[in-house]
């Protein structure tokens, strides 16, 4: 693997740079090239910090370089590069000298090697700092054209960092956004830009796609769902009559569909890392996360101006605190995995949130992975560490809480009745604790007997505890045994005078106690799902909290209690190594952008940052979203790394097109639907994915960025599942609401999963088929329990932002799609439907094709499928009834305090009402045999890939 960006950059540097002459020019060469190279590649191990110095070699001065390190040989032999270990190490091909720097990805390029060589050959002069500065002043202007420009930012950790030069091309995303003129010669602006590139590559575009393929592309692209056979049938003649009008009408229809917002939300949630649980040791439910998910769907459906969408997510609570929608929107800031347990240092956990949110804002809106600047000034981009902490300081008064937020009329509140199952579980846990409490009280009596002690005082405490228990209405359980102990402890009775905690419990009971207690704790989070609260933030001081094991509320003393965080540059990113103080701010390389400064008051910081991010003058924001939207249609972006517009990210293949799209977006009030319309009505969008001159494309456009064809892409995991459900007619198209639980692989559903102190609850599918067959967007996303059928088709894990889905083919995909129960169930339902909706065998097969692939079978396909159908009938004999989820599952584990096994039964009352899908036993062999044809259609490349 080579670092393509870096090579490009250095090649650009070298081009036109006359080879420096040895001798007098060597001083200039040192100042301009070699000194920065030594700093970049050598000094971290051979310089500044003597404690970190490797091999005794110090490369900060000429004398030390000539003296060398522990090897006893000089590192540099002036005038003789081929005898200089510094040069030989850098070449990486010398047997005696270890390749340096150690990381291959940081190796010297051939130009850099040439500079090093020429400098040594020229006598290895080493002008001092003053002389270097003199040379820089004298020659700086002459270098600028070749070496690039400096960027004015806030101070870096070293002055050299600020003096760094960036080739103009590397700063493309930081340049002010101006709408480029559209090249002449094309009817559609997008095509005009694309045509320029094609002409440059001497490629002709592929012909237009067939109508069916085009409608399928539009439907999946804009709604994530296939077109119905009726829509295909209506589109074909319209397209034949007037392709442009037909496409425009289809685009309008799809943009108006409520499923459009779902599709866009799926993309957005990949970027922001949506999940319904918090990850790490407890993986607690985030009961209200779904409201943020639905907010995103609503925002896209309503074509919320993108700048407002940004503002709401960063600072909705500050902008409009009484509006539940705005409060819910700040769920964005909470999307990263996070928890604080008693096992963890609170300050470390707090820092984890701050780092997460800083980086997330950078990646999501600005395509700047800011974590690169957490420990040091950015190695490639004009982002000093100071900026990282300035941006972090914006969040120094941002605290996590589940805030009150009334349900809106447009929120889907169906299914809240499932809460009774959780209440049932809660009652079970309380009963278990009650039983164990009685057991401990009995054991306590025995303890006094065994010890020969007088239980009078204890008995009095127990009586008091029982009275207290009745008088207090506590939600959680507190048994008389534990309360009695607290009473005596408070009365300063010596601890050995009364029974210890959990007295006399067996390992089995020990385990049961923990399971019930932790189970109650977990339910607090789950029950939050049906309450009018939002996963959100508030402004205030940082409360002194050691662990978080229940949903948090805004404390009354938010402005008074706790620490008012003063953000500092953290040395090495370590919260216990604070350095210089910083004030809240944004990226200094871009300046204020005409927005107000970020205040250092407790309130108002995020609002100011949001204004800055969403400013039309911010050159990154509009480019970033335009690039993402392009990728959402074409499967690949214009600039290769949608989360990274820095030097190490891919540069845009069509920079003018990207700028035109971004400027158009801003010009049209940040309307994303307008942008979709522009893109989807272009000829580039409507091209075939197969090119008649494949060889030419492969040769002149090996990276596949020319847009000579529409890139073929595999459907995402969610599209595959939704498309099968749509074809079989089972899809429930309801929009929004609490997460549903489709049937996942039963062994995974019941797989015991350790969380802190207990097991997480089993996955119990929803009782009714319609509840299970909602769009995949709505399936409960548990960080610790990915659905294997989704994961295997590259659904990204929700820990990192996903800028682009992987679509790698791996063998277990076959197991899932060809052997998995879900595909078989969908195939059976499709077969059943097709038989119902047709009159003869050929018509039935044709209906299967229409529903699954949106087209008629060819004669050969029809014959093959009919033959297969008939042939499978005798083989389809053994029919099985639908499996049902169990009503309870036995859990076995090693009890952590005793190392002994214990077991308990987890009851799954929600499974009692389960209504299975259509099962093989419900239909005749003829239907089962046809289901095999359907299964093959679902597994075919035509179904899984979008042309």
């Amino acid at each position: 693997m080579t670092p393509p960006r870096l090579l490009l950059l250095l090649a650009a540097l070298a081009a036109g740079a006359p080879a420096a002459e040895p001798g007098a020019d060597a001083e200039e060469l040192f100042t301009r090239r070699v000194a920065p190279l030594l700093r970049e590649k050598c000094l971290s191990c051979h310089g500044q910090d003597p404690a970190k110095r490797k091999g005794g070699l110090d490369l900060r001065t000429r004398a030390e370089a000539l003296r060398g390190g522990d090897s006893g040989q000089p590192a540099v032999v002036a005038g003789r590069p081929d005898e200089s270990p510094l040069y030989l190490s850098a070449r990486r091909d010398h047997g005696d000298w270890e390749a340096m720097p150690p990381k291959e990805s940081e190796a010297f390029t051939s130009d850099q090697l040439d500079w090093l060589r020429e400098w040594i050959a020229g006598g290895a002069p080493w002008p001092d700092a003053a002389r270097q500065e003199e040379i820089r002043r004298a020659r700086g202007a002459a270098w600028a054209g070749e070496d690039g420009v400096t960027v004015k930012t806030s101070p870096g950790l070293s002055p050299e960092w600020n003096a760094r030069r960036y080739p103009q091309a590397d700063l493309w995303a930081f340049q002010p956004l101006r709408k480029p003129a559209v090249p002449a010669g094309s009817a559609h602006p997008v095509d005009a830009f694309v045509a320029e590139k094609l002409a440059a590559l001497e490629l002709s575009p592929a012909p237009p796609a067939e109508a069916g393929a085009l409608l399928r592309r539009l439907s999946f692209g804009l709604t994530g769902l296939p077109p119905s056979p009726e829509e295909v049938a209506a589109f074909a003649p319209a397209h034949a009559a007037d392709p442009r009008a037909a496409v425009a009408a289809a685009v309008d229809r799809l943009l108006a569909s409520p499923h459009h917002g779902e599709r866009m939300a799926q993309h957005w949630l990949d970027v922001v890392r949506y999940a319904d649980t918090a990850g790490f040791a407890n993986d607690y439910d985030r009961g209200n996360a779904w409201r943020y998910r639905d907010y995103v769907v609503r925002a896209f459906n309503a074509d919320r101006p993108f700048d407002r969408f940004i503002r709401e997510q960063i600072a909705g609570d500050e902008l409009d605190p009484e509006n539940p929608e705005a409060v819910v929107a700040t769920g964005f800031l909470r999307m990263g995995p996070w928890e604080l347990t008693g096992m963890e240092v609170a300050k470390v956990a707090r820092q984890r949130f701050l780092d997460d949110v800083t980086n997330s804002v950078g990646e999501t809106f600005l395509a700047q992975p800011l974590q690169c600047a957490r420990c040091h000034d950015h190695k490639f981009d004009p982002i000093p560490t100071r900026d990282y902490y300035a941006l972090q300081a914006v969040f120094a008064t941002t605290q996590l809480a589940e805030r009150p937020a009334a349900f809106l009329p447009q929120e889907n509140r169906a299914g809240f009745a499932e809460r009774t199952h959780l209440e049932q579980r809660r009652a079970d846990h309380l009963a278990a604790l009650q039983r164990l409490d009685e057991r401990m009280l009995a054991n306590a009596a025995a303890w006094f007997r065994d010890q020969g002690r007088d239980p009078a005082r204890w008995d009095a405490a127990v009586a008091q505890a029982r009275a207290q228990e009745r008088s207090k209405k506590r939600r959680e359980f507190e048994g008389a045994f534990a309360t009695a102990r607290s009473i005596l402890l408070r009365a300063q009775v010596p601890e050995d005078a009364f029974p210890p905690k959990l007295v006399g419990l067996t390992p089995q009971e020990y385990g049961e106690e923990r399971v019930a207690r932790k189970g109650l704790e977990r339910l607090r989070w789950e029950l939050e799902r049906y309450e009018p609260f939002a996963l959100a933030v508030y402004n205030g001081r940082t409360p002194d909290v050691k662990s978080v094991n229940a949903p948090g509320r805004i404390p009354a003393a938010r402005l008074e209690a706790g620490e008012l965080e003063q953000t500092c540059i953290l040395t090495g990113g370590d919260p216990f190594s604070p350095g210089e103080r910083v004030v809240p701010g944004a990226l200094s390389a871009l300046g204020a952008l005409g927005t107000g400064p970020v205040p250092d008051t407790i309130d108002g910081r995020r609002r100011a940052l949001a204004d800055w991010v969403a400013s039309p003058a911010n050159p990154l924001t509009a480019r970033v979203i335009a690039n993402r939207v392009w990728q959402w249609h074409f499967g690949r972006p214009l600039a290769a790394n949608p989360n990274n517009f820095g030097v190490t990210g891919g540069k845009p293949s069509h920079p003018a097109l990207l700028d035109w799209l971004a400027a158009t977006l801003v010009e049209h009030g940040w309307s994303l639907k307008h942008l979709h319309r522009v893109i989807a009505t272009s000829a580039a969008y409507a091209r075939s994915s197969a090119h008649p001159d494949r060889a030419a494309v492969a040769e002149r456009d090996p990276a596949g960025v020319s847009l000579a064809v529409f890139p073929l892409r595999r459907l995402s995991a969610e599209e595959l599942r939704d498309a099968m459900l749509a074809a079989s007619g089972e899809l429930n198209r309801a929009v929004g609401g609490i997460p549903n639980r489709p049937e996942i692989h039963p062994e995974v559903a019941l797989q015991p999963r350790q969380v802190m102190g207990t097991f997480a609850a089993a996955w119990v599918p929803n009782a009714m088929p319609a509840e299970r067959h909602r769009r995949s967007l709505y399936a409960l996303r548990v960080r610790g329990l990915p659905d294997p059928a989704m994961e295997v088709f590259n659904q990204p894990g929700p820990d990192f932002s996903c800028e682009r889905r992987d679509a790698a083919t791996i063998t277990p995909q076959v197991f899932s799609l060809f052997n998995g129960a879900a595909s078989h169930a969908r195939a059976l339902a499709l077969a059943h439907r097709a038989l119902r909706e047709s009159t003869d065998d050929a018509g039935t097969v044709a209906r299967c094709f229409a529903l699954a692939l949106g087209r008629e079978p060819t004669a050969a396909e029809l014959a093959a499928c009919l033959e297969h159908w008939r042939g499978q009938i005798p083989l389809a004999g053994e029919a099985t009834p639908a499996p049902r989820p169990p009503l309870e599952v036995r859990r076995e584990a090693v009890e952590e305090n005793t190392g002994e096994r214990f077991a308990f039964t987890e009851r799954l009352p929600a499974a009692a009402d389960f209504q299975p899908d259509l099962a093989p036993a419900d239909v005749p062999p003829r239907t089962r045999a046809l289901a095999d044809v359907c299964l093959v259609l679902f597994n075919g490349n035509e179904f899984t890939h979008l042309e």
Partner: protein
Amino acid sequence: MNAYFPCAGARALHAPTRRDFVYGLGASLGSVAFSALLAQEAGARSGPLAPRAPHRAAKAKACIFLMMEGGPSHLDTFDPKPALERLHLKEFVREGREKSAMESGKRYFVRSPFRFRRAGASGADMAENWAHLAGVADDLCFYRGCQVDSVNHPTAMYQMNTGNRFGGDPGIGAWVTYGLGSLNQNLPGFVVLPEVSYPQGGASNWGSGYLPAVYQGTPLRAKGAPILDLAPPPGVSAERQRRNLDLLARLNAGHAAHHPGADALAARMESYELAYRMQLEVPGVLDLQGEDAATRELYGLGREPTDAFGRKCLLARRLVERGVRFVQLYHGTWDSHDDIERAHGNLVRAVDQPIAALIADLKRRGLLESTLVVWCGEFGRTPDNGVRGGTAYGRDHNPKAMTIWMAGGGVKAGHTIGATDETGMEAVACVHPVRDLHVTLLHLLGLDDNRLTYYHGGRFKQLSQFGGTVIRELLA
């Protein structure tokens, strides 16, 4: 329980087909036939799992990683601290601001309830209850210098398994498979044998992170179907499935004709045939009935408390024998906050014989030289504890000290490297962070951490995160 039933849920396809002859695979697969198959396929293979040359010549070709999840106590296993006898129940005061709630309240030093002895000719320190492991003590290299950055289970597990405390990065097995490929294209290159219940942090402990998904750890499940959906659902016979595959191939061929040269389509078509081969091969690998009685006895199969982990160890050997590159076994939980005598006592009884058997069995088959065996947890434990639940003594999490041991190709067997302080609170000699351990493990497998990189998120990422050094003291 915990059995690797060869065919439970993974019904083999009994009807022989033409592909059985093509690929030479039957239901019971001997290693001779297998070696021949490897040799035959080795030359012509390509693809992401094709074997690749290491960066340097190395003895170890495969790794068996025994992950004792929960944090085994070094003080009660391999790192005796006589000073704790003297300090027993004396109050322990901890300095420092990096305290979690776990460290609050009054704390006391706790002596080890286990007696120690010197094992083997090398005189390795070992608690007496490691009765079987003592027999292979001279094959082990103990390391007492490793430190982790996290005091909490999932973050420490993530760091030990992926280098990154916060999860989401590729597991070490994923990196090794990415670097070396696999010698067997019909099995996953990186296999995980988890406990029935997954550890804290779940499947991310063996994920592929930003590496291609093909490198992620495939858990062979301890109960039920070893690989999900390896076999079609009940009622779908081999013949029926084969006919479906044939129709699929026919329809796909028609589609491909319109998309010549589309690699993704061709790869999908090939993956169905590969899946079919895996479907045939995996049940045979998992069938431990083929092992002779003496071997089964050696690993402690068929009786408590060794059966469960014995099966994992034996299966690990069979997988490595068949060319699987990296096998990670989980056992736990070793998180003994209370009553360490009982808790660690039970845990050691469950793993002692199986692990000793694994080392001995690898050795007698000549596989130990080419296999790196690693035993570790995510951290060690403290010399002190708070009083909980009365008089039972346990220990809390300790990121500053732990014992790791290694055996096999390239390690300095028969030595103990590094040391902890008088009470075992902190490593003081040959101290290295986890990243250096990772760099060393890669080195032992012939891989250079600085060359084993993957470009993602704007930089070249590597297992050690930002680079590290080989712990030379651990090398033979």
